[in-house]
């Protein structure tokens, strides 16, 4: 007998809206509310929102917080100076493989929040707790399952969210990019997974439904996981579990830019493994020239050897299929390669990521 899926605080709202529900990492989540393509366009041209309460906010505080995180994460939190500033980082194992990708916010030298993926949350917390114990760091960890989180994204997201929630306007202003501010019991972050401007708001679970309804009334369109995937793909953003996992180095996943080796005196978990083994592949964007849809784990054939797609879907903005592909390092951007789709060899072109910026195609 399988364990029943978990519900976020907004589950009833999704069901009432007629969402098609699906299990995602053990949570019963909306995949669409009718048309994922319409939802995608809403985010690119107006405002859409996602229930991301299945992700976990992990508060980490104590006198050793900065030292501890500098030893835990591949990116360096020492760069976070302005209160509320955030960076995107991988958390690696000793072999240099990716345990998870996450965003870390710094509120003070002794007060941070990590936001981790739903499917890896338990694993991440166990890993962090173990490291706290082995390093005897003076920090405490608090997994905030009392919080819901709503991501409002699109060129009109902030405008519509402000109309729905007056406290956004009276707070210390809307935060700047990749920064979070507290407003009462809310944490408002100018971050997202779509390539558009917007906010991710962490809210006590008890307030979530009223907030969601106010946003709907202000014209923000509920969007599901289907649109979330096509949006992040167009924006060139990795999906943990597909584009990288514990067996993949960030260097082979297009994430070298998130690994900070500048401070020679900063050891972090996985550093020596990364320094011992440079990248052997590169992660590029792929556009299918023939008709069809790219999916993950499709074999590709390049002039430099074989590779594999890691992610794929249909791009509503480009009206073509796009994906990410792991190919030999020597593969050039702009090369036309072949993809095996259900036994047929179709033509596809490699491109630099992202595919879309500010709602406009770059390719």
């Amino acid at each position, binding site marked *: 007998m399988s364990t029943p899926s978990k519900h976020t605080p907004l589950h009833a709202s999704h069901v009432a809206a007629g969402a*098609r529900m699906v299990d995602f990492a053990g949570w019963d989540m909306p*995949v*669409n509310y009718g*048309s*994922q*393509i319409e939802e995608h366009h809403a985010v690119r041209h107006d405002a859409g929102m996602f229930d991301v309460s299945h992700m976990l906010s992990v508060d980490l505080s104590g006198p050793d917080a900065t030292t501890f995180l500098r030893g835990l994460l591949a990116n360096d939190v020492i760069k976070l100076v302005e209160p509320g500033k955030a960076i995107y980082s991988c958390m690696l194992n000793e072999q240099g493989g990716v345990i998870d990708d996450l965003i870390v916010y710094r509120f003070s030298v002794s007060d941070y929040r990590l936001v981790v993926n739903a499917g890896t949350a338990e694993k991440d917390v166990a890993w962090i707790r173990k490291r706290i114990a082995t390093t005897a760091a003076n920090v405490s960890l608090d997994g905030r399952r009392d919080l819901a989180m709503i991501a409002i994204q699109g060129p009109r997201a902030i405008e519509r969210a402000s109309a729905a929630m007056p406290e956004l306007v009276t707070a210390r202003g809307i935060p700047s990019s990749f920064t979070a501010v507290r407003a009462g019991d809310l944490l408002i972050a100018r971050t997202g997974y779509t390539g558009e401007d917007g906010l991710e708001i962490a809210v006590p679970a008890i307030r979530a439904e009223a907030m969601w309804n106010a946003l709907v009334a202000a014209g923000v369109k509920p969007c599901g996981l289907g649109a979330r995937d096509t949006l992040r793909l167009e924006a060139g953003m990795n999906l943990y579990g597909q584009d990288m996992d514990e067996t993949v180095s960030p260097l082979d996943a297009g994430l070298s830019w998130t690994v900070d080796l500048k401070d020679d005196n900063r050891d972090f978990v996985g550093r020596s493994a990364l320094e011992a083994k440079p990248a052997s592949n590169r992660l590029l964007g792929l556009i299918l020239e023939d008709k*069809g*849809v790219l999916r993950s784990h499709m074999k590709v054939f390049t002039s430099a050897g074989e590779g594999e797609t890691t992610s794929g*879907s*249909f791009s509503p903005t480009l009206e073509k299929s796009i994906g990410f592909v792991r190919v030999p390092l020597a593969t050039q951007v702009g090369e036309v390669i072949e993809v095996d789709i259900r036994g047929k060899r179709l033509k596809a072109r490699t491109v630099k990521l992202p595919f879309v910026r500010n709602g406009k195609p770059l390719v």
Partner: protein
Amino acid sequence: MSNIPANLKYTKSHEWIRVEDDGSLTIGVTDHAQEALGDIVFLELPDVGRSLAAGEACAVIESVKAASDIYAPVAGEVLAANQNVVDAPESVNADAYGNWLFKLKPINGADIEALMDAAGYATEIAQA
């Protein structure tokens, strides 16, 4: 709740079939199918003149989510393929019964009798 017109025949693989006055068959995918697939983005239809065996995979319907094969409900010869749905795949989501995919000339008209009626299909999808 899926729409299941009473005047059509159905298969377990979610195709609908309309028997025309001249005995030819018009074939599409059901409302249940389009809903399960999500936004349809591509359709590959069989060539006119192709001979199909009963149950043979003869077309592909691809949504953002997944690709699905479409099967010939009975043995026959392809009479026509609907270019309109190839050009506008989303029309199948909008109206699954108003947008046919291909037409078949059955080898044996009696084969139609073995297909499910609306009540049978309703039971079939309720059990899924």
